[in-house]
């Protein structure tokens, strides 16, 4: 018993302490979302009265088109995820299975471009899309399709390494068999690769969904109109320094927006962790 204490107690002490550190802000947001007064000030850390007031405000108040924001976020992140996984997997397949001149150079260039943090070119993106707006107001600055296009610019690079690793692991014999049966490369991609890779594609799609859902600055720059905003931009603008007044509805809104993401993340934990050690970085 004594030995157990000596060997394990400090581990539990650290574990509990850091768990408290992790959970504390989240706990605070949850209880303040149920705080009837809706203000940032909490009289105690253990709630005495629970109320749905803040959630009610969130969905009913005309000042916060929260449902529209959620819909926008789901639409943008969903479309980006689906299209970018198609683009990414096609490129990964070609890099893995097809022979063409400049293949190695292509991979290296892609890697190089990837290293350029997108945010550095943000003023150029802004100016270019402003010009696009001059002749095509539907896809330029200030529109969701425009934002979508900008997000898709990075589609080929982002997940290609994960996907290429997976394509590499599919046995060549399958392709060869398909080839003997007369399948073209495009058919091999659709009929062999896509069905086999479906689980991986699903994971990559969801990860890309999380990434886009979480994107702030481009969305902020593009979506000026209240009703086109994503939930991240909408809530940020709503709280905009007015913490003491708008805290309650904000807390409720951030919880509703976060829960699905946290659930997706936790269920994909295994893949994300293995992706981390493969070199992708968040945080």
């Amino acid at each position, binding site marked *: 018993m004594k030995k157990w204490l000596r060997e394990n107690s400090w581990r539990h002490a650290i574990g509990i302490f850091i768990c408290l550190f992790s959970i504390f802000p989240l706990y605070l947001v949850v209880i303040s979302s149920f705080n009837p007064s809706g203000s940032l000030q909490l009289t105690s850390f253990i709630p005495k009265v629970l109320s749905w007031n803040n959630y009610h405000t969130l969905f009913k108040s005309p000042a916060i088109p929260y449902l529209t924001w959620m819909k926008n976020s789901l639409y943008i992140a969903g479309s980006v995820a689906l299209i970018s996984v198609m683009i990414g997997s096609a490129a990964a397949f070609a890099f893995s299975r097809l022979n063409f001149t400049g293949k190695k150079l292509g991979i290296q260039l892609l890697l190089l471009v990837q290293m350029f943090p997108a945010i550095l070119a943000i003023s150029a993106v802004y100016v270019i899309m402003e010009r*696009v707006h001059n002749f095509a107001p539907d896809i330029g600055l200030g529109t969701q399709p425009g934002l979508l296009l900008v997000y898709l610019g990075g589609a080929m690079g982002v997940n290609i390494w994960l996907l290429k690793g997976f394509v590499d692991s599919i046995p060549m014999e399958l392709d060869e068999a398909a080839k003997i049966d007369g399948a073209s490369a495009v058919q091999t991609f659709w009929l062999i690769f896509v069905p086999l890779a479906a689980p991986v594609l699903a994971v990559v799609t969801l990860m890309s969904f999380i990434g886009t859902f979480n994107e702030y600055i481009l969305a902020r720059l593009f979506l000026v109109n209240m009703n086109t905003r994503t939930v991240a931009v909408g809530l940020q603008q709503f709280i905009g320094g007015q913490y003491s007044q708008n805290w309650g509805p904000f807390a409720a809104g951030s919880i509703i927006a976060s829960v699905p993401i946290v659930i997706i993340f936790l269920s994909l934990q295994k893949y994300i962790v293995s992706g981390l050690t493969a070199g992708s*970085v968040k945080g």
Partner: protein
Amino acid sequence: MMTLLRGKVAYVLKLIVVLLISVVMLMLTQHAVAQHEYAIAIFLAIAVILIAFTYLTQVSVPLKFFIPGLLLLFAFVLSPILYTVVMSEFNYKTGNILSKQQAIEQIVSRAVEPDANGTSFDIKIGVSNGVPALLASDTINKTYFLATEKSRTDLTPDQVTLDANEVAATAPNFRVLTPSEMQTADTKYSNARFYYGKAGYFVTLEGFDVGIVSHQVLEYLPQQGIFKSLVDDSVYRDNGRGNFALVTDSSNMLNPGWRAPIWFENYTKLFTDAKVRGPLIRVFIWTMVFATGTVLTSFALGLLLAIAMNKPMRGRRFYRSILILPYAMPSVMSILIWAGMFDTEFGAINNILGTHIAWFQNPSFARFAVIFVNLWLAFPYFYLISSGALQAIPTELNEAAAIDGANPRQIFRKITLPLLLQILSPLLIASFAFNFNNFNLIYLLTGGGPRNVLSGEIAGGTDILISYTYKIAFGSNTQDLGLASAISVVIFVIVAGISLYGLRKSKVLETFK
């Protein structure tokens, strides 16, 4: 499925899709040409050709897989990068945003002055025979006339009806604009010059109710490329930096200017202009301190945790699922939540500490808060990669060391830690590069502040290079896209250097494995 991919059906489907896309893109090309956006038009035209060529012929199979991704990559990643470099060579800031042609047109249209007597009329704006017109009234002399841009028709008092203010409201061949037309008619009317009848003079609008008799004071001479004053014959010449400046006094410039190439001036400004250099150096130092500090603190906490949890023990799965929560939360939300917790009056942090610290008003406190919040956001990541790396270290090494009489502390310092660092260094470097540009954290938590508003300084105490650049490019008072682009290019060189170093390290990792 098979029929969709093979045979005539597939071919027809493909043809329809390719045609639809081509038609849409060709329409866009045409619009782009109409707006003189030739670079974009050329890109679109080439894209259409490439798409049609790739999907309707069998010349290149790999291109079929790459074309959509490549075109998007070129349009929204590569060309912005190139354009950033181009912009950094230009004097491209508030007051110098337009093209030269647009700037000249603007100067001409702005260079009007009221006549010597300040003659003005009460007016109604409207339409006469389908063209913009105004109905002017001199309420004192009871004279009225109807003016379009081409002609003037004098009216007798019995041809008009007056409103309560004795201003003519109706006239033959004239219809007053409805309020909804007014809202959209702004530019068409405010830039118009209505015929007055006296040579060199015309009527311009001063708001929607008053017209003033004005005359042109500056004239553009395209052959010489200069502006000449019609009042005193003074000459304004292109100063080579995007403005027309008075020949005798170069600080007297005409507005607006245009974006003009100034080559490396934006770069040299970074090092020579004290107003730019001072803040830039401070921001750069803090960026380095922040990126290093945040990686070190988060790595230390993550590693401590990984060591503590690196043993099968009761509750490990439970701890793990709680510990990962900060990483699973959408970071934009977490940062905003933390910003609320650091609120001076009602925030939880001051509440618990029993203090009344204005966290974001004091540079030191704000910097501490930034690193602290990022510790919360990032430590789970370092915990995950550290525990992965710990498991990759062969236990035989530790056992051998133990047999040789090393105590646990020595084993950790001499064996585990060096190996860990070697395995993780590419990820630590990548994380450094990421935090070097961790815009969201700074922007959403402190907004880069606190900053000295009185001195007109735009760099705040917690601004990192990227948030500082953003402020320069999109600031509320002046926007200097040229300078911002130059800083972006410098940041890119730094980050690319760091990343390349990291990549080489990760090759080391491969050989190590």
